[in-house]
């Protein structure tokens, strides 16, 4: 089936493009998609929370009242108009820490997401489209990565290589793509049996052309939906590592703030409360968004 029409064997493959383009997710329906997500309360909440974190992260320099690493008031001051979320033991403004923490989370989530998408979509597509032995081999590798305990692997890597954002993203990205690859593989597998793909194949389009123009555009929505749920878990994992003091020592992160709060739990509830709320909101936003997209696109949870 696959691989029977090498590109070089096709004299003129340029005029086969319109044959099987499906319009299910073309421009206009996509706008309707957003409206349908916003119509459900859960979807609207998901979109708002996710947007909120993105905007705060992007505009951290403008939104943070002070430098999160420099003392700005009395130590351990409870929330007040001067310091809306209070201050820590060194008198640093917690609101500024939470605002800059959004930026750290944003960087981790986007960088890990890009890596996961790249590996997951590549493995899933090759596996689903090629089938046979390649599929078997890739699925064994995928299963292996699903079993690998990410949290403990990350801790060992941090101990051996030293803490840092780049290492964290690399470890999280390299170990989180497995389920995404399976989702993409399932999509590609069913898509490659569809009529419009058969039609493109019959008209002599190359494998690369079929995959890039016909299959991927239709398989990607499922991948993106799943990515939201997956990144919510990545965010929680990064927060846990930060809580244990294993995050990047040069950056403020929500997990790190909550970890620092542990010693002052008796005297300063706000130090653990607000960073935790921030993490929960961000994770909830991604989960709700993922669920809403799944419902609207009619996929399975």
């Amino acid at each position: 089936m696959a691989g029977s029409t090498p590109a070089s064997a096709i004299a003129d493959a340029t005029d086969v493009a319109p044959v099987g383009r499906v319009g299910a997710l073309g421009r206009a329906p996509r706008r309707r998609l957003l409206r349908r997500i916003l119509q459900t309360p859960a979807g609207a909440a998901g979109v708002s929370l996710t947007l909120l974190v993105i905007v705060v992260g992007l505009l951290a320099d403008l939104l943070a009242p002070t430098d999160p690493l420099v003392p700005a008031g009395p130590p351990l001051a409870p929330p007040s108009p001067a310091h809306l979320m209070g201050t820590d033991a060194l008198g640093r403004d917690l609101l500024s820490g939470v605002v800059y923490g959004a930026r750290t989370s944003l960087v981790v989530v986007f960088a890990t997401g890009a890596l996961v998408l790249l590996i997951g979509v590549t493995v899933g597509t090759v596996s689903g489209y090629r089938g046979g032995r390649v599929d078997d081999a890739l699925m064994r590798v995928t299963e292996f990565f699903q079993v690998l305990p990410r949290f403990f692997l990350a801790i060992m890597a941090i101990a051996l290589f030293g803490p840092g954002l780049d290492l964290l993203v690399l470890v999280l990205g390299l170990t989180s793509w497995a389920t995404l690859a399976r989702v993409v593989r399932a999509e590609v597998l069913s898509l490659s049996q569809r009529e419009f793909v058969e039609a493109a194949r019959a008209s002599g389009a190359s494998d690369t052309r079929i995959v890039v123009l016909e299959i991927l555009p239709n398989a990607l929505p499922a991948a993106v939906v799943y990515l939201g749920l997956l990144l919510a878990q990545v965010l929680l994992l990064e927060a846990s590592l930060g809580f244990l003091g294993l995050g990047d020592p040069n950056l403020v992160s929500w997990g790190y703030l909550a970890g620092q709060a542990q010693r002052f739990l008796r005297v300063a509830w706000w130090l653990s409360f607000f960073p935790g709320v921030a993490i929960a909101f961000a994770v909830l936003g991604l989960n709700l968004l993922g669920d809403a997209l799944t419902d609207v696109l009619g996929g399975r949870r």
Partner: protein
Amino acid sequence: MTGRYVGRRLLQVLPTVAGIVLVGFLLIHLAPGGPIIALAGDSGDDEYYAFMTAKFGLDRPLPEQLATYAGNVLRGDLGVSYIQGRPAIDVIAERLPATLLLAGTALVGSSVAGVALGAWAAARAHSIRDLAVTSAALVLYAAPVFWLGQLALLTLALRTGLFPVQGMTTAGGPETGLAWALDVARHLALPALVLASQEVAAVARLTRAGVLEELAADHVRTALAKGLSDRRVLVRHALRRALLPVVTVIGSRPGHLLAGTIVVEVVFGWPGLSRLLLTSVQTRDTPILLGIFLLVAATVVLANLVTDLVYGWLDPRIRYR
């Protein structure tokens, strides 16, 4: 479930275990400073370096090193921790029971509570109680476990004194017998509850979805038409079939659960693996870290294996392709 299925599934474990062992090897060899610094730290004495070099064959060619390392690992011999001056595996084994007690309690509790809550919510879909369960599950699923722990400490332990704040036993309290067990149980309650909450959320969500799907199925309508009671139909006909994917999810979460256990241990000062793990990161005590990583990975592989076999037993349609 055929013997063939069991056999094929058991064989699958081998490459997985080999892969996990290989990951440890790669990390140690890629680490800055090379394998001897990674394994023995940079503060050891010559005698210790010579011991670890010989133990892992670090003066031999690479394939031989891999073989020696794999042999050591599979025998459970990870070398001597320089910091502790004892075999790494002994140090880990000492801390393991407390971690297993906490994780095991949470696993059993969350499975039972999650299935019960999910089915209870699905029985009256879209009612107030369903809404309450699903929203609570959604929030618990999103909340970081250390935050839930800190909130529980603040509200239930520090403010009201209902639960002890830190540790596994009362200092100077009973050391044996029933009184000791009760003391441990009192200390265990809150951390186990916090650790279980996220798992409860995951299991309840899945059970609810599964039961709802089954309740709409033909065989349930037939059972109701036969005049069976609602409760009987729910438990015997809908829940039973809906449990299949739930079993898979419970079996696939030990890695996640153990990660959560480490974090919860830190919040509640529970004397398990967490403190050992964190000091080993600071002192770069690789034999310990490698041991914990391999132990967790082995647990996850074993849990997956058991899950698949249980699944095959529950659902006779399963055949290894």
